[in-house]
């Protein structure tokens, strides 16, 4: 799995000081936000990411040996979509509305 850190919302994948507790806290936070009953697919990914990062040994193994380069969509998702949401300004809202009215 590429960049499991991002799935758990851990910013720095190369952070050497990342502790088991940090990872577990991030995991629990995500599970709370995406309970398996409502988001089975998302939960599966969260669980998978946690399994990779849960202890020092598996974290190190991932850092040392993971070779699967990310695909374009994965990179773009990681860099552009996985972040906090905002609200547009009125102009942007109305411009998009105007555009949507055009055939």
């Amino acid at each position, binding site marked *: 799995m590429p960049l499991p850190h991002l799935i758990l919302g851990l*910013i720095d994948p190369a952070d050497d000081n990342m502790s088991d507790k940090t990872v577990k806290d991030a995991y629990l936070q995500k599970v709370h936000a995406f309970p398996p009953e409502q988001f089975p697919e998302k939960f599966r990914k969260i669980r998978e990411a946690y399994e990779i990062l849960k202890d020092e040994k598996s974290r190190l193994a991932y850092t040392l040996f993971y070779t699967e380069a990310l695909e374009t969509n994965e990179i773009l998702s990681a860099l552009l979509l996985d972040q*906090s949401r905002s609200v547009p300004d*009125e102009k942007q809202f109305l411009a998009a509305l105007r555009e949507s009215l055009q055939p």
Partner: protein
Amino acid sequence: MAKRRNKKNRQSSFNKKLNKKIVPSSGDTSDTRQSPELQAESHLQLHRYKNAMDAFKRLLKNSPDNNQFKHAFQQASQGRCLQLAEKKMFKEASVIWENLQHFLEQNSLEQKQQTEQSPHLGDYLQWLLQSAGTHKALDAFIQHESDIRKCTWFPVLQSHFAAHLLLAPEQTLKLLASDHPLNSHCCLAKKALKAYCAQQYDEMHETLKKIPFRSAFKDLVLILKAELAPGSGQLLSKVPQHSAFYPFSQILVSLTFENEALLEKLKVSRPHATALLAAYLNWDKETLKAWNKIKQTLAVAKKSKKLIKKKVLLHWLIHLKSFSTMPEKEAIIQSVCRLLLLEAPSEYPAYVQRFGTLGNAEMRRIEALITEKHNREDALDEWEDFLTQTEKPLVKALVHRKMAELAKRMAGETFYYEIEEEYTPEYHLQQSLLYDPDDKDSYLQLLAIYGQDKSQQKKATGKQNKSRQKVINDALTHFPHDRNILIAAIKESQHRNAFKKAAALANRLLTIDPTNSFARQMLVESHLSHARKNLVSGKHHLVAKELIFASNIAPDSPRVVLYQGIFSFAQQESPEIYNPLINKAFELYNNPLLALLTLNTELLTARLHQTATKCLTPTIDLETTLSPMQSFNWINALFEQMQWYQNDNFHEFFNAFVKSDKLFKLVSKNIELPEQRIKISSQLIHFKHYPLAKWFVKFDKQLLKTPIMQYYQAIADSRNLPGQVTDSQFKRLETAYDNAIDTGDKRVANLLMSLLGSIEESRFSARMFDPYDDDDDDDFGDASIDENKAPFDYPVQGDLFAMMDEIMGNLSEAEKKNIMNEMDEVISGKISGGRNK
């Protein structure tokens, strides 16, 4: 001036061409020789509304009072309006509509609704709105408001008015009375939107409450509310498809998608929609700019149906500076770039420019990961270098494990007879345990290596044995209660013939897991083995003791019950005691073939057979409705048991097998599938029971009609004969294969294909020893070769047919000749062709 004239000329010549194209089309009923009335009518019928309008206009000039022409003109105009609207030419459609209304007024005619699809005032207003004529549309709306409100299409139209009024300048709104619902609701909607964008949600809610449920702005209310609600997708889905706000709501719905779908939506979004989504996604201007560049590249790649190369991706990440404006993303970008470096190492200089040089250890790591894709041996060296650059014990342990994995794969690929010690998985796993002695997986892997089949394993040296014992002891110390470790240790002890230790470990395993079938079976076998030895040496009291132990562990084990019967027989030769036991064992086995083999083997091993056959009469109740699959499974289990006996040096099993011939014949008659019969033939030849093999193949002849094919295959598989097929025989087989393909006999074609494949493979290995080969490097063994032989046919140790003779054993000359002829027929393709008949 000259330019304008030219343009006009070009237009007129284009129109001429267009007219030329339209008028004389094939199958056209409008002939130029027809009367103008007929021509006009035909244009109308063929939905050429533009031509029909022109034609009826001309006709009306000549006869202005002709009502038929007037109605036809009206019909043509309406059709034209719709045609233009379909082409999204709303302005043109509305102009024609207005001209038509003017014409109807002049001629005191009423608007006539030709069909349900005919355009109406509502359509006209929508065309006006869509062609930026909000002002004009509002004027028309005010004029006919009372009529419009009664129409069924009003709810659709009002959402369009709402959306356009929201975007229209203030002056347009002034056309409406201040207390007009559209005006007042529009002001409220604008206020709510302003509050939403300023994130003043309380004020927004208060304002939205003032907009009534049936308002023209109700869909906007839904959208604004949805943006704050957790399940926004559901609220947005309530916006009806006919609403003017629907396309806009769909843009916002994409924000609720998973990343992959959202990305796809972003790739196809129009500029302002992208900008809106970007704003929601918190992108800055630079990121949006970068995205637009990426989008172009993606579009080109999609068009050419190619994936974006990793090199290009890396290039984006390194060079599109916009990504670096997000500091929290920098670490992610660096990680992604490192991963991409593995695929595009040539971009390293660019990487250095942005992120600086990599450390020595990191360089070695990347180098090793790149190298291992094509050269595992070099990769091992790279990892060895990496180990010198790192101090962390856990990293060293992990790298040794990785090296063990590489060495394991290398061992499977290499042609070398000897692998250096530092290239063996065993070495690296042992090394890894020095740095991380708690790794269960390494212990398990090592125990599996130690417990490998003796035939595959090199004899361990004394030093190796010591280190192995240490590893096993360490594993049992670190994981004293682990089932997998205990099972692996038991297997290892069994393979070293350390049965006492194996039994002790099995007992330990049973204390942890009392139902563990592996431990039970192991202990039962151990006790039976002791019982067998004691029975042969006449120590009956010890046999009884061992059997009690065995039955305590597995009271219903068929082997134990069987041996109890044999022991009873050995003690006192009375059928009343042992027969019930033997029969019970047969029942428990549920496979009489296997039971009979086991019984006979045990009796022969205990040297009791001669006496036993007089008394032992196991009743074998063979079901008459035995299925072919069940028969095959029974025989398969029998062969597996025989293999086990062979491996464990039970020399009596072959004689025991001979004694079950009758039953074997009975069971094997049920098997019909050629592949299964081939397998059985091969096994019979493998166990060297040639008389039974002969009988089996002769039965094939009756059953399958192509006995030789099976027979040959069986012989070839079991004796590795294909290497001894001559050129001419090979060519004949190829011809037979072609014939089978031509006649559509897939089964024979497949059989021949696999046979030809194995022959070729075998010939390849024969060529490895080719005495005429100039390249000495390829020859890794010294074959004593007769240089007078032709290289291609070497080694021919005898004719294939002669080899078959050996297997055919006691066949009469006539039978042999018959089989030879059939073989010849198969090879020349006659049978393959004939089978279909």
